[in-house]
């Protein structure tokens, strides 16, 4: 069995009876076990997975199998899973078991996918290195002295190491794209509103969006087709129906041959060192495949990080108020008073980065600072969005680096939160604008993967994925894998 098989290949194997789902799941569980030092999983749901695999095998016998029946996957530990712990990488939810499934979890389970377990993440998705996990950082499978990126680092590393063919993630300011780039896998953050946020613990509600990691564009499309769609439980989920998306697992992803115009934003390339030549090579690849390249400008790019840290911090400061030790989650020992209960439960339950962001957000929203920070950030957010909307009047897609460089070493940036925040400089603008964006591996520097980012107009996932398919048809970066146990 190919350890880095796509779900298309696995589905074929299951259909042809090369192996049963139970055998397949046992194989992946064994791989997770053998690579436990990578710390990619917080919870491995062995019993549940084997039971679900047995049901999948029965579905095959009854002839009722769908595109994901019996296919293993992993969820970032931010998605609520009924009966299996959901920690958000935090001590405050260490022992919490959700009484419901997130819509994403529910839809994938109904499609027959088998949940292997819950992947490691920066606490409440706040981080770019996975080092903010209460359960210890996940490691980069290409070089275990380096971070896998964050916050969905566990999912990216697990896919890269072949511990699961696909995994879900969430992206608020780059938390899918950045670890995808660091780990050499593909990862898509859909348009805001494309995927329901119900049952996904909130970090910054106006930015959070669920997405998926995999090896190729086809796998991303198939999983996305199941995850996405209107959810009456999420007021912000889009009710737009895309017949292309719902049919993609049968029709397959067609590499885009429309000769698209691709914009290269000068602001994203000006200080790029590591990977600049790889990005240029990737651009050339598109040109060779019939695309037209053009320089564009996104003049408010510099506003993105400040605006993001205010908006995300403000939203997080109130989204995380519910973790107060009263109704669920961690409570301190022997609280002397209500205040004591609140303060010790939250202070003992949250890690330092979460506290920093809560305090930043509290500051931005407090009396006297609201206009100067929160409102100002929202105005800049509009300018950033307008930059993109103007650009998309001239270009079909934007090609940009995903990260400023390759995966950094564990501990390199932990003492400097601002330097850590700068890691997200290329991914945050699309998040603020609510645009779909994905990262694909586009080469290696010093044995470490580099990712390129494609950003499209709202709800242009088809174009993004078909263009990715075009690139992956002509290159093999996505077929390179790290050496793992």
């Amino acid at each position, binding site marked *: 069995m190919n350890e880095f098989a796509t779900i298309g290949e696995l589905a074929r194997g299951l259909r042809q009876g090369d192996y049963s789902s139970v055998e397949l799941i046992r194989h992946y569980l064994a791989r997770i076990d053998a690579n436990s030092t990578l710390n990619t999983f917080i919870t491995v749901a062995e019993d549940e997975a084997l039971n679900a695999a047995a049901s999948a095998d029965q579905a095959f016998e009854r002839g009722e199998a769908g595109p994901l029946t019996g296919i293993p996957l992993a969820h970032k530990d931010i998605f609520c899973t009924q009966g299996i712990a959901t920690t958000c990488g935090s001590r405050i939810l260490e022992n919490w078991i959700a009484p419901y499934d997130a819509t994403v979890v529910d839809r994938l389970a109904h499609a027959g996918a088998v949940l292997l377990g819950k992947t490691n993440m920066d606490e409440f998705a706040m981080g770019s290195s996975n080092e903010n996990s209460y359960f210890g950082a996940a490691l980069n499978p290409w070089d275990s002295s380096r971070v896998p990126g964050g916050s969905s680092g566990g999912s990216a590393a697990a896919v890269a190491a072949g511990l699961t063919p696909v995994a879900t993630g969430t992206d608020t300011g780059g938390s899918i794209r950045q670890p995808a780039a660091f780990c050499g896998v593909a990862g898509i953050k859909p348009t805001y509103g494309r995927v329901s946020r119900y049952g996904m613990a909130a970090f910054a509600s106006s930015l959070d969006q669920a997405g998926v990691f995999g090896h190729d564009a086809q796998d991303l499309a198939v999983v996305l087709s199941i995850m996405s769609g209107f959810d009456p439980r999420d007021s912000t989920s889009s009710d737009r129906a895309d017949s292309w998306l719902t049919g993609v697992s049968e029709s397959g992803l067609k590499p885009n041959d429309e000769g698209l115009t691709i914009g290269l934003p000068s602001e994203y390339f000006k200080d790029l060192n590591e990977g600049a030549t790889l990005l240029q090579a990737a651009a050339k690849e598109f040109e060779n495949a019939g695309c037209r390249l053009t320089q564009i400008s996104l003049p408010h790019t510099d506003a993105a990080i400040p605006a993001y840290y205010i908006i995300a911090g403000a939203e997080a400061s109130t989204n995380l108020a519910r973790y107060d030790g009263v109704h669920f989650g961690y409570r301190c020992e022997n609280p002397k*008073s209500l205040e*004591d209960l609140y303060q*010790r439960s*939250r202070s003992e339950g949250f890690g330092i980065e979460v506290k920093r962001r809560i305090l930043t957000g509290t500051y931005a929203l*407090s009396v006297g600072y609201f206009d100067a920070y929160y409102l100002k950030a929202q*105005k800049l957010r509009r*300018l950033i969005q307008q930059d993109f909307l103007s650009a998309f009047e001239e270009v079909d897609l934007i090609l940009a680096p995903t990260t400023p460089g390759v995966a950094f070493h564990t501990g390199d940036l932990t003492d400097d939160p601002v330097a850590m925040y700068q890691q997200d400089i290329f991914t945050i603008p699309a998040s603020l604008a609510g645009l779909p964006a994905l990262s694909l591996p586009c080469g290696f520097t010093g044995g470490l993967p580099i990712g390129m980012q494609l950003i499209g107009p709202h709800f242009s996932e088809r174009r993004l994925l078909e263009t990715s398919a075009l690139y992956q048809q002509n290159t093999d970066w996505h077929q390179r894998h790290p050496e793992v146990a």
Partner: protein
Amino acid sequence: MADIDIKHLCRLAQLALNETEHQAVRADLERIIAMVDQMQAMDTEDVEPLAHPLEADQRLRPDEITEVVDRDRYQRGAPATRDGLYLVPRVVE
């Protein structure tokens, strides 16, 4: 940069920091606020704030009871309950 009253922020956010953490967080916040203060020089005159990336309208839900409450299950993860109530140290109003 405005003076940051960490104690006040901690009170609003119900966080308790010891002296070492307090100093560290103060230094971090000063750096973070200095970084976000780059915004202040940027021109946003006549720009409408953007609260939501899609700028759609709120959808309304029909007025129907759709939830079946399973209290015991919801309270399984609760730190302290008795007779179906969540318990906290005595609150003085």
